[in-house]
C-alpha cells in the first residue's frame, strides 16, 4: 500500500520495489536514539514473555527465613515481607503489565485511526458529531474515568481492560482526524477521486497508511502512559489483585517499609522508568528520523 499505488495495478513491480527500498531506508536511517530505545523495549518484552523461564524463584514463593533481605547475588532485588524474591515478582509483573498495555494501546489505536479518518474524510454532519464525541471523551481525566469504570465493574484487570479503551481511541481519532483534514487536500488523495476509486479504498489503502505513521509514534508515548496508569491503579489497590504480582502493587507494599527496605519500592519502579525511557527514545528517534528524512 503506498501513494504510488494510485496509478493502478500495472505499476505493481515499481510499487513493490519502492516499498522495499523505503523499508530498508527506514531501518538504516533510524538514529542511535531509536535503536537504543528499541533494544531496551525488546529486552523488557522478552523478559516479560520469558518470565516463567528466567525467574529464579516463583511469583509467590514464600521464604520466611529470608524476609526483608537486601539485594544480593541470591536475590537481585532483595526480598519482601514474606520472603518473596522481588526480582522474580517484578518479572512476572512485567509479563502481566506489558500484556495489558499492548491490549489497551493498539486496538484503540486501530479503532481510533479508522474513526478519525472517516470523520476527517467525510466532513459535514458525520464529522461534526464524531468530533463532539471525541472532545467529550478527551475532556474526561483518564484516571478518573477508569476509576469510575472500576467502581462499576469492580477492581481487577477487567476494569482496566474496559475502561482505558473507552477513552483511548479518542486520542488517536483526534490525531487521525486532524491529519486527514490536511491529507484530504493533497494531490494523491484528489487523484483517487479522479481515478474513480471507491471511498473505502481511498481511505483504507491510501490515507490510513499515512495516518498510521504519526499514530504509531504517538503510541510509544501512549504505551508509557498506559503502563503508568496500570501501575498507579495497582498502587491504589484498584488494579490487578494479589496475589498476582503487579508492578504498582509491589511498590505499594514497599511503602510501609520505605526507609528500612527501600529496595521493594525502588527497584521495580526503576524497571518501569526503564520501559518509559526505552519507549521515549524510540518515539523520539523515529519522529526525528522522519523529519531528517524530509529535510533531505
Amino acid at each position, binding site marked *: 500500500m503506498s501513494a504510488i499505488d494510485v496509478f493502478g495495478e500495472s505499476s505493481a513491480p515499481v510499487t513493490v520495489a519502492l516499498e522495499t527500498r523505503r523499508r530498508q531506508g527506514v531501518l538504516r536511517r533510524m538514529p542511535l536514539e531509536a535503536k537504543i530505545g528499541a533494544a531496551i523495549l525488546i529486552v523488557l518484552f522478552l523478559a516479560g514473555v520469558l518470565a516463567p523461564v528466567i525467574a529464579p524463584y516463583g511469583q509467590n514463593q514464600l521464604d520466611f527465613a529470608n524476609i526483608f533481605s537486601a539485594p544480593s547475588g541470591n536475590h537481585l532485588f532483595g526480598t519482601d515481607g514474606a520472603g518473596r524474591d522481588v526480582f522474580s515478582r517484578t518479572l512476572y509483573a512485567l509479563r502481566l503489565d506489558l500484556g495489558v498495555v499492548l491490549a489497551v494501546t493498539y486496538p484503540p489505536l486501530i479503532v481510533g485511526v479508522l474513526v478519525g479518518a472517516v470523520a476527517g474524510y467525510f466532513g459535514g454532519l458525520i464529522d461534526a458529531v464524531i468530533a*463532539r*464525541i471525541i*472532545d*467529550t471523551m*478527551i*475532556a*474526561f*481525566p*483518564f*484516571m*478518573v*474515568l477508569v*476509576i*469510575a469504570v*472500576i*467502581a*462499576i*465493574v469492580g477492581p481487577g484487570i477487567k476494569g482496566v481492560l474496559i475502561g482505558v479503551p473507552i477513552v483511548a481511541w479518542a486520542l488517536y481519532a483526534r490525531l487521525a482526524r486532524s491529519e486527514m483534514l490536511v491529507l484530504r487536500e493533497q494531490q494523491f488523495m484528489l487523484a483517487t477521486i479522479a481515478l474513480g476509486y471507491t471511498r473505502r479504498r481511498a481511505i483504507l489503502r491510501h490515507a490510513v497508511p499515512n495516518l498510521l505513521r504519526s499514530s504509531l509514534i504517538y503510541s510509544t*508515548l501512549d504505551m*508509557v502512559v498506559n503502563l*503508568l*496508569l496500570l*501501575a*498507579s491503579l495497582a*498502587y*491504589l*489497590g*484498584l488494579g490487578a489483585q494479589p496475589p498476582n504480582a503487579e508492578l*504498582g502493587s509491589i*511498590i505499594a507494599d*514497599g*511503602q510501609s517499609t*520505605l*526507609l528500612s527496605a*527501600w529496595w521493594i*519500592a*525502588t527497584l521495580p*519502579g526503576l524497571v*518501569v*522508568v*526503564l*520501559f*518509559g*525511557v526505552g*519507549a*521515549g*527514545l524510540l518515539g*523520539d528517534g523515529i519522529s526525528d528520523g522522519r523529519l531528517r528524512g524530509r529535510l533531505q
Partner: protein
Amino acid sequence: MLSYLIRRVVLALVVLFGLLVATFFIIHLVPGDPVEIVLGGHASPAQVARVRHELGLDRPLLSQFWLYVSRMVQGHFGTSFTLDSPVGQIIGQRLGASAALIGYGMLLSVLLGVPLAIVAALRPNRWMDKSIRVGTTLTFAMPAFWLGLMLALIFGLELGWLPVAGYSGGVGGILRTLTLPALALGLALTGVVVRTLRSSLLEVLQTEYIEAARSRGLSELRVVGKHALRNSVMNTLTILSVNVGFLIGGTVVIEQVFQIPGLGSLLVEAVEKRDYQLVQTLALLAGSAVVLASLAADLVQATLDPRVRLAGR
C-alpha cells in the same frame, strides 16, 4: 471577539452535557442493584426501598436523568450514605487541599519548565539541549507515585527536610506539606512544558520579526524573553490546559502517597466503599474542571493573540 467567545462557550456547554450523560450512566451500569451493594446486603427490603426512593432510582430513566441534571446544576449533590454527610459539604472541605496541590504543581512545572525550555532553544542540539531532552524523557517515564515515594524517601525520611504526610493550609503550610507532592505531580508536566515550549520557541526564533528585533539592537534578553516568548506562550497555555486532566488523575495517586485529605483520596475511598453517588459527582466535577480550564485557556489565548480574535475562529 464576542462571536468567538460565544462559540467557545456553546461548545463547552455541549461537552458538559455529554459529561452529564456519561456520568449519569455510572450508577445505571452497575451489574446488580447498586443500593443493595452499598448498604451491604444486611439492610431490610424496606430500607432498600426507602433509599431507592431517595435516590430516585424507582422512577423511569428519563425522569431520573432530568432529576440528576437539575440536581447537579443547582449543586444539590445529595447526601452520601457511606460518609453520612452532605456530599457538597464533604467536597467543600477537601477541595482546598486538592486545588492547592494542582495549582502548586502547575506553578512548579512552569517555573522549572520555562527557563529550561529557553536554554534549550537558544542553543539547540548542543549538549545542554540534549541533556535537557534526556531529562524530559526520564521524567515522562517515572510513575508519579513512585517519584513521590522516592522524593519522600530522600527528602522526607533520609534527610528529614519536609514532612511526608498530611496537609496544612496557609501559605507556610502549603509550602511545607505540599512541596514534595507538587514536585512529584508536576515533574512530568515540566517535561511536557519544556518540550512544547522549546519547539515553539525554535520556530519563533527563526522568524524574520525576531531578526528584525535583533537588527534594532534590542538586547537578547528582550528579544527572547519578550518577543519570542510572547508568541510561544499560546502553545504552552494550550498544553497546560490540555493536561489538567492528567494533573487531576495525578492528584488521585499523589494524595494517597502523601496522605493528603483531598478529593483524590476521597474518590478512592468512594470506590472502595461502592459509594456510586459520590463517584458520580466527583467524576462530573473532574470532567467539568477540565472543560472549564480549557475554556479559560482559550479565552486567555484570545486576549493575548489578536489574530485569534479577528479570525473569529
